[in-house]
């Protein structure tokens, strides 16, 4: 398979930064001397110990044979730190046991590093295959040159170039020689045939597995550097509101407290970089800092959102969706068709604010140096954004900021936002000492960037021939942009393309409408984002439609999807966004959605008869370019306790790069969905979040999460797409529909309260 270089913009950008280094510190050409052990009399495995072959920013081969692969994406549990390096290792025929993964600092030379939106594999699969294949070609060229043979007589096998005569040279031995060669053009590169893959689509365990189970893995909170002091911040319960006065006498009297001072607040909407401000407490250790913070007395000021009440806001949104909103997609006349309908199915759907609550709370270590530079160690999803934000806050150049990315103790979108790192950097500068900033769990839950709460109304018209003829979907939710701009008064088109405007049903009369809702608290993107709300509503109403049409829910869904086609959404509306890629590159293909539905139907035992109190529910949804169908089985006992014994997913994510980690994302996605469906809810009163820890912001435990989750893959050679977010959206309505079957209770509001 030949790559198409014209499609490969990212790779081209990074090529500019390609550096070639021969032997470090050498003054002339020194022929490689094999130092390592020999496999047989003809095999030279290693070269000069100080030889370095780094043909691109992602791959370095040392004279020792060690291959260093850069992980430029952040590891928050998806396995990406393993999955992308193994793509390179496969193309370059590296021995995985000789691979060392190096976590990249934040730097534009690596291309996009923002680990978000389920696009790491999608965006980098092809460029990193080419990077690996380029290295392999250069090693083959170097060996051919050494042996004075034609390159066609050479092949790459497990960290060696082998000649047809049987002799071989190791990658370490060839490193220096390959480093002297020009970098081949992309059109000279041949990628492997998928049948020859050694790592791609095979099972590779995560690189950090043993470190994790032995407690050695280093997360942001574990970073230790000399002279570190610990900081915590007491923040106004209302985001963006300031401080009238404070008294720190009791706090500073505690032994080990270094300083208590005020950090200015930034008024709402403050964006994603600005610290919330508050009273900073710096101490010798964490416990002293926490105790001293409790001892600070503060009189808080009020800001513009002092009256925000999420319950009243929800009622207001729910009222608003009863009337027509701004029509964002229209086909035919839904109003007319509804008037003529024999049956109208309609319902409201409500979803509360949610918090990310990653297991590791936001935290960062910052060292502002005497020379005005700053070094950061932190669990961040977007190190380049953090670098920019820290430089701006400190008034220094980006080149003076180093962002070291640690492992992330999960993130779900929270650690995309740089605010907590900026806090740490500012405190380090103020204190002139290295600082570890800890957000306690209370800080995390009360000062998050919350998932948009949302009210929806859906109306579906069915004619006398039992055909669905009209679809009206109205949604109201505060925009993520509302955190940064007072002008963002409601959903943006981009946000509506997560489950509203990309509705795939073949219905003649459609009206998709948005209603205003203004952010009055920091809003941010949470795993799966608005798809959570919209897939819940659509997946649930479709089940009601099936019931009204007296059809099997799967058959009803297939009927609604209609013909096999690639839907040209751009012709249907203005400003359609297909997860920031072109529809022609990643079409919305109803055939692929129908395939996963068919597969889940076959594998799940769909339609089997179940005793009272048990139910099976179905839903399907495409998000982040990945097609997912889900069947959930539930048991509901007489006390309304809900158990989820089995979940089946059928998925089409193109080529499955690391199948075990894909399964893990779906297992975890179902558990995450179980949290949102059954447990989690953020309530705001007088501008302040009422929940503050895992005793009242509830999440799924082992007793709540699915007991089994099985993932079935559609096998194809399509371009790979992401799997971090796509599991969550269809799981929730599938669960709700299963509960309906088990109990007859229709769920229209999350979290589920039977």
């Amino acid at each position, binding site marked *: 398979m030949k790559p198409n270089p014209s499609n490969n913009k990212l790779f081209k950008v990074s090529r500019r930064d390609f550096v070639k280094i021969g032997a470090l510190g050498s003054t002339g050409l020194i022929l490689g001397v094999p130092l390592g052990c020999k496999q047989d009399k003809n095999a030279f495995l290693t070269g000069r110990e100080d030889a370095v072959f780094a043909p691109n920013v992602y791959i370095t081969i040392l004279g020792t044979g060690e291959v260093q692969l850069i992980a430029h994406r952040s590891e928050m549990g998806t*396995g990406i730190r393993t999955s992308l390096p193994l793509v390179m290792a496969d193309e370059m025929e590296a021995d995985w046991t000789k691979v060392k993964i190096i976590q990249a600092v934040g730097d534009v030379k690596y291309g996009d590093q923002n680990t978000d939106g389920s696009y790491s594999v999608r965006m980098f699969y092809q460029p990193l295959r080419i990077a690996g294949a380029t290295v392999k070609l250069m090693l083959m060229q170097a060996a051919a040159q050494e042996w004075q043979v034609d390159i066609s007589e050479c092949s790459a096998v497990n960290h060696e170039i082998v000649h047809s005569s049987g002799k071989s040279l190791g990658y370490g031995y060839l490193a220096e020689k390959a480093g002297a060669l020009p970098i081949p053009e992309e059109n000279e590169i041949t990628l492997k045939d998928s049948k020859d893959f050694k790592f791609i689509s095979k099972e590779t365990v995560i690189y950090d597995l043993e470190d994790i189970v*032995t407690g050695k893995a280093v*997360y942001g909170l574990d970073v230790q550097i000399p002279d570190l002091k610990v900081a915590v911040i007491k923040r106004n319960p209302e985001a963006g509101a300031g401080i009238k006065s404070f008294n720190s006498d009791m706090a500073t009297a505690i032994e080990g407290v270094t300083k208590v001072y005020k950090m200015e607040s930034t008024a709402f909407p403050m964006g994603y970089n600005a610290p919330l401000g508050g009273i900073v407490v710096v101490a010798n250790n964490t416990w002293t800092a926490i105790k001293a913070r409790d001892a600070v007395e503060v009189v808080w000021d009020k800001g513009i959102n002092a009256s925000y009440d999420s319950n009243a806001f929800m009622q207001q949104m729910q009222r608003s969706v009863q009337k027509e909103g701004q029509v964002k997609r229209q086909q035919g006349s839904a109003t007319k068709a509804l008037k003529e309908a024999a049956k109208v199915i309609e319902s409201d759907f409500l979803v509360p604010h949610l918090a990310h*609550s990653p297991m590791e709370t936001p935290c960062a270590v910052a060292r502002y140096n005497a020379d005005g530079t700053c070094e950061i160690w932190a669990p961040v999803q977007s190190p380049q954004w953090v670098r920019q934000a820290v430089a701006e806050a400190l008034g220094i150049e980006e080149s003076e900021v180093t962002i070291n990315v640690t492992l992330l103790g999960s993130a779900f979108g929270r650690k995309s936002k740089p605010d907590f790192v900026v806090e740490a950097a500012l405190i380090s500068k103020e204190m002139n000492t290295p600082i570890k900033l800890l957000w306690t*769990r209370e800080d995390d839950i009360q000062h998050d960037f919350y998932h948009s709460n949302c009210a929806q109304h859906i109306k579906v018209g069915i004619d006398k021939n039992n055909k669905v003829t009209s679809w009206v979907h109205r949604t109201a939710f505060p925009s993520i942009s509302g955190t940064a701009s007072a002008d963002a008064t409601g959903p943006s088109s981009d946000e509506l393309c997560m489950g509203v405007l990309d509705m795939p049903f073949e219905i003649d009369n459609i009206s998709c409408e948005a209603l205003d809702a203004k952010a009055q608290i920091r809003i941010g993107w949470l795993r799966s984002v608005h798809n959570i709300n919209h897939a819940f509503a659509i997946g649930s109403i479709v089940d009601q439609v099936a019931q009204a049409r007296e059809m099997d829910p799967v058959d009803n869904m297939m009927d609604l999807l209609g013909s096999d086609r690639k839907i040209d959404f751009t012709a249907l509306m203005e400003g359609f966004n297909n997860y920031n890629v072109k529809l022609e590159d990643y079409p919305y293909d109803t055939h692929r959605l129908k395939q996963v539905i068919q597969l889940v139907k076959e594998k799940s035992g769909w339609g089997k008869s179940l005793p009272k109190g048990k139910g099976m529910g179905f839903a399907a949804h495409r998000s982040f370019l990945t097609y997912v169908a889900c069947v959930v089985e539930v048991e509901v006992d007489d006390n309304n306790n809900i158990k989820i014994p089995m979940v089946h997913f059928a998925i089409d994510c193109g080529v499955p790069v690391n199948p075990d980690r894909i399964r893990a994302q779906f*297992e975890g996605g179902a558990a995450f969905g179980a949290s949102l469906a059954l447990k989690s809810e953020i309530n705001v009163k007088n501008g302040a979040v009422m929940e503050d820890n895992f*005793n009242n912001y509830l999440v799924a435990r082992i007793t709540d999460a699915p007991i089994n989750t099985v993932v079935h893959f559609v096998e194809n050679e399509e371009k790979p797409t992401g799997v971090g977010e796509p599991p969550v959206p269809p799981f929730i309505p599938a669960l709700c529909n299963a509960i309906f079957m088990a109990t007859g209770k229709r769920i229209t509001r999350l979290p589920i309260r039977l």
Partner: protein
Amino acid sequence: MILPMEKFTLNINDQKVSIECAPDTPLLWALRDQLGLTGTKYGCGIAVCGSCTVHLDGTAVRSCSLPISAINDKAITTIEGVGKDGLHPVQKAWIAENVPQCGFCQSGQIMSAIALLEQNGNPSDADIEQAMSGNICRCGTYIRIRSAIKNAAKNNV
């Protein structure tokens, strides 16, 4: 309340260590800040998430809510101390089942699982749920935690 620093001698992973801290300091922060044992994690600070689980005389306890002054000479075991000769069988089971995703909660999960298996060599699903329900995993690795515990039980931990 302002408490002056005191000296404490602790028995951690079969070693005697001395530290000086306020007597109400939770064991968690002494381990992490003063003894460099960062495998034990902070998750909630109020003993509801289990990330900070360690053993006190073999029993699983939440170190975030255990003041140093209450420990005396009881034996503390942390994740760093469970595999005396290489990996503990429960750690091996965790590897065999590829349990971790982000991994942050897994030290605590493993400590709870070891304590369970030491008391009950053949736990039922209900036993596992009861013993492990105090440990939150936001990545949702519960299915594999369950199978790793069964795997370890089968291999007679």
